[in-house]
Structures are given as structure tokens and as C-alpha cells.
């Protein structure tokens, strides 16, 4: 039975209103508003959905490895409720804002500790630092082939067939296993969790591994020397006045036509 490992990072909610989020330039740290519950990085949820889609078609075991400074039980239980077989929390203060080079090391060590695997699924990039590098580090450290931005993955005759999204279409690729595949929105949103399913897993124990459990030793590859909020390019907006939506729509059209912003050739 194939084993699929899904790597899921827990982060500050990237969908939070950006006005609430600030940066401590001096210490080069993000300052999210307190009290906001952390979430899974959105593309990692896509990766889990990809694994569940494989499970819809054939028997397999899905193990989620979730990394973060602090992993709320409720967040981890969601993956069990949605159909993963096991989840291991990689939780340590060391993992806060860990750079991708070290993150890849942690994940690769954790995967080796899990032992047996045929596929590793991850999101294309994390919704916080947007680096897009951890997948590559994991694949290199484990010395396995990789395919990025899959839309679909299927296991057939001991190989994995992946539909890869490129700018002008889809490439169908086949890879030896074990292999790593990254996912983005194309594979589909993570399926909904029912309340019943959540209740069922409430009592399930979740193992947690710390940095030392995984023999993790920090190294420096890249240095971040500045972190700040740039000018976002906000502009003065002319709000079209009016009573009804339809009137405002007409007036908008008239204004844009008058100013030569649209249909200039007419």
C-alpha cells in the first residue's frame, strides 16, 4: 500500500486584512496581530487534497508532517477529520520564522524518521515567506525526483503520473517513486470537514517531535539583512457618486469615455 507524506506548514493567516499586519524592521520580524489563530499554509492544503484524491481512487496511507512554532491541536486534528491517517506535529521554538534552507533540513529529517514513503506532497510555496524553496531542499536531501505545480497525481504500476501546469497548458509526466510533487490551487481546494468527523478525531493522540528529536542542526546559507513595508502604491480614488448602482455605472462609463481612458479610437 503506498505511503504518502504531506508536508504542511502552520502560519499566520495570509488572508488577514493587510492593514492589521506590521513589520518590526529593527528586529526583522513580522508582527501579526495577537489572538489570530494560525492556519495551514493554503498551498499545503492543496497538497493534502491531492493526497486525498489519490486515496479516493486507491488504498494508501497519508501521514501529515506539520511544522510550526506552536501547533494548536484543533488545527492538526482537522487533517485527520478530513481523511489523513496520521499527523505528526514538528513543534519547536526553533521553528519560528525558520528560513527555507533549514526548514528543508527539518522536513527531510522528519521524513527519514517516518521511514517508509512513496510520495511526498507539498505546497508550491508557503503563504507567509513565499520562498518556494523548501520542496526543492527536501527532494535534494532525500535524493528523489520532483515535479512542480501538479494538478493531479495518480499511482500506476509503481510510477506516479502527474499533470504538470505550465503557462500554455498541461504536461503529462511520469516519475519513478519515491518522488516529490508540489501543488498549487489547480488541484482544488481542501474538502470540507464535517462536525461529525471532527468529533470523531477529537480524542486521537497526536505525536509531537522537537528539533532535537530530529537531530536538527541549524546552518546559515542566506542572510536576511532587511525587512520592511514598502510603499504599496496606494492612489487617490475618485468614487463615482450617484443614487442607484445603474446610475453610477453609467456615470463611470461616461467619465472614462470623456477622459479618453476607454475606447479612445472611437
Amino acid at each position, binding site marked *: 500500500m503506498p505511503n504518502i507524506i504531506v508536508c504542511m506548514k502552520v502560519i499566520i493567516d*495570509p488572508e488577514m*486584512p*493587510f*492593514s492589521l*499586519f506590521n513589520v518590526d524592521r529593527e528586529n526583522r520580524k*513580522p508582527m501579526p496581530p495577537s489572538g489570530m489563530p494560525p492556519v495551514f499554509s493554503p498551498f499545503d492544503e492543496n497538497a493534502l487534497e491531492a493526497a486525498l484524491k489519490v486515496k479516493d481512487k486507491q488504498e494508501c496511507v497519508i501521514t501529515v508532517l506539520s511544522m510550526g512554532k506552536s501547533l494548536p491541536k484543533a488545527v492538526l486534528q482537522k487533517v485527520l477529520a478530513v481523511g489523513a491517517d496520521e499527523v505528526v506535529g514538528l513543534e519547536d521554538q526553533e521553528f519560528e520564522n525558520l528560513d527555507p534552507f533549514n526548514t528543508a533540513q527539518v522536513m527531510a529529517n522528519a521524513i527519514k524518521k517516518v521511514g517508509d514513503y512513496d510520495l511526498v506532497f507539498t505546497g*508550491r*510555496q508557503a*503563504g*507567509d*515567506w*513565499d*520562498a*518556494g*524553496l523548501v520542496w*526543492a531542499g527536501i*527532494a*535534494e536531501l532525500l535524493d528523489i525526483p520532483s515535479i*512542480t505545480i501538479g494538478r493531479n497525481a495518480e499511482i500506476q504500476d509503481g510510477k506516479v503520473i502527474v499533470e504538470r501546469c*505550465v503557462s*500554455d497548458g*498541461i*504536461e503529462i*509526466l*511520469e*516519475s*519513478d517513486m519515491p*518522488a516529490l510533487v508540489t501543488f*498549487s*490551487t*489547480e488541484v482544488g481546494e481542501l474538502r470540507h470537514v464535517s462536525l461529525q468527523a471532527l468529533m470523531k478525531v477529537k480524542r486521537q493522540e497526536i505525536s509531537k517531535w522537537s528539533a532535537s528529536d530530529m537531530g536538527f542542526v541549524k546552518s*546559515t*546559507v*542566506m542572510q*536576511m*539583512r532587511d*525587512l*520592511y*513595508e*514598502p510603499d*504599496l*502604491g496606494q*492612489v*487617490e*480614488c*475618485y*468614487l*463615482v457618486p450617484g443614487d442607484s*448602482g*445603474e446610475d*453610477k*455605472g453609467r456615470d*463611470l*462609463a*461616461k467619465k*472614462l*469615455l470623456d477622459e479618453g*481612458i*476607454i*475606447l479612445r479610437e472611437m
Partner: protein
Amino acid sequence: MEGYQNILIFGEMEGDRLSTLTTQLMRIGKEVSKGLKQEIHLLFLGGESQKAGEEGYGYGADRVYMALNPLLENYMTDPYLQAMEQVVSKLKPAIILFGQNDKGLDLAPRLAFRLKTGVTLDCVDLKINSENGLLEQVKPVFGGKAHSHYFCVDRHPQIASVRDGVFDPADYDRSKAGEVLQLSLSLDPANIRTRFLKKQEDVSLALALKLASANVVVSGGRGLKKKEGVDLIRETADLLDGAIGGSRPAVDYGWLPSTLQVGLTGKKVNPQVYIAVGISGALQHMAGCSKSKTIIAINSDESAPIFKFSHFGVVGNYREVLEGFNDEIRRTRESK
């Protein structure tokens, strides 16, 4: 640094010409090479057009290299990695620049880990730092809320990928010419662990191409509320001879194909006019459209962040607004 010199650009061809992204890399690459006082070399793996290769000199390359090999015909990570390892070993570049596209986001990271060096993807600025002589890699993080400056210290080459559309194409000087140098590589098929089976052209390819080049884009988001909303924005786009696009939620809900997603991990567009309908204005979306000349927002929520980035705005129900808008445009077109 230890015999590593010059900037190497990973170039791509579109037929007989350099791809637009490659011409943009030539511009920023040239700036960086001046900062280093070293040369800029352009590399093509697998591309066959001699003419495109020669065009590289016109865009400012000091040397243009081409490596042809049947194993490079279709892009795949393993053979391209092998090829790049050999190229780096022969040329020892101080810096390698990729475009942030399907190949760049796949090859640059894996190459960096293979060479045990550092990399930053999706850079919006690059320069040689005057204090340390290293490549300063500027990258948007947290969806674009912040910018990070990264340095690769003590490892080489320094690798970065550049976001599409941030830099203009380099100037073309037809008087500059040169010989395209062939690099011979020995690639081992036994080390290739993936196989290319076939390519499926996207059914929405025509729409995606239109989106890339249109002067007017009408884009729909979560506020469309249902799939039928796309019909209305399509009507608006047609009336303005424009293209349709969408934000991530509209694609997630299946209202629009993913090739029409505008945003941080989607398409980058810079039309004359960008009309955002039912789009909240999340930074991840603005990353794809903020370079548009005029941005117009239609949203029922007056506190939506999109109004901070728009030149014109209408607060209202988008159906009513677009019905009035479309009717007015239709009338104007008919009267001419």
C-alpha cells in the same frame, strides 16, 4: 570569489526570438554586471534557433552559449539539472539569473540545493551591494506586505529568479553581433528519473494569450457570487475589446480556469485599464495587476482595500453597476 566570475542568464527562446522575460533579464543582468564590472553571458539549453542566439548579442550579451542535446528537448528537472551542473563547472559564474516562470521556479531552487548554494525566487529588484560586493536580492514576502533583502554569503554561485514584468526589456542594438558558442554536454540518461509523456494544450489558451496582451482587462472575484457573473464581465470585456481575468477565489470556485488567475502566483498583467469587479484587493491579487495604468474597482463593500489601489471606484451591486456601464458603452459604440 574563488574564480567565480560574470553573470549568467538562463535564457529562453520563442521561435526565432528571445522570450520577453529573457529580454527583461538582459536589462537587469546588464545593470548587475556593471556593478560587478564583469561580463554578462547568455545561455540557452535546448533551444535551437541560431538567429535567437545571435539576437542575444544585440540585447547586450558579451557571450552567448547554446547547448543542444536530445535529452533537453522537453523541459524536465533531471536532465536540465545535470546540464546546469556542467555549465556551472565549466563557466563558474558568480551569479545566475532565471526568469520566474515554469522553468525558473522549478530549476533555480533545485540547482541551488544541488550546488549547496543559496537562491531567492521572484525578485523585484537586484543590485550589487556597494559594501560587500554581493548580489542584494529583494523579494516580496507575506503576500507582498513586506520586502526582504537577502544575501548569499560565502557560497557561489549566487542564484536568483526575477519576476516577470518588473523590468523593461533591454534596449536592442542591431549593430552588436557575435558568434554563438556551442557548449557540448554529456548527459546521462540513467540519471533521469522522470519521463515526458505528452503535452495537452489548454482549452483556455486563447483566452490566456488574450489576457497577456490585452489593453483592457475585466477581472472578477469572490464578489461575483456565482458563475453567471462571469457572463456579465465577459460582456463588459467584449464591449471594451478587452480580456477577462480573475482573482484566486473565482478560480477556486471553478468560475474561471486557473490560466486566467491574476496574482502573486498567477499571471502578471499591465493593461491600460484594469477593471476589478467584486475583488477585495488582497495584496496577493494586487501583485498581479498593480502595474496597470488605470485601475477601476466595483465592489459592494466601501471598506474593501481595492479602493486604496484604484483610480476610479464605484460602491454598489456589481450587477446593477455593470448593467448601467455596459448599456452606456453599447450606446456610445452604436452612435459612432
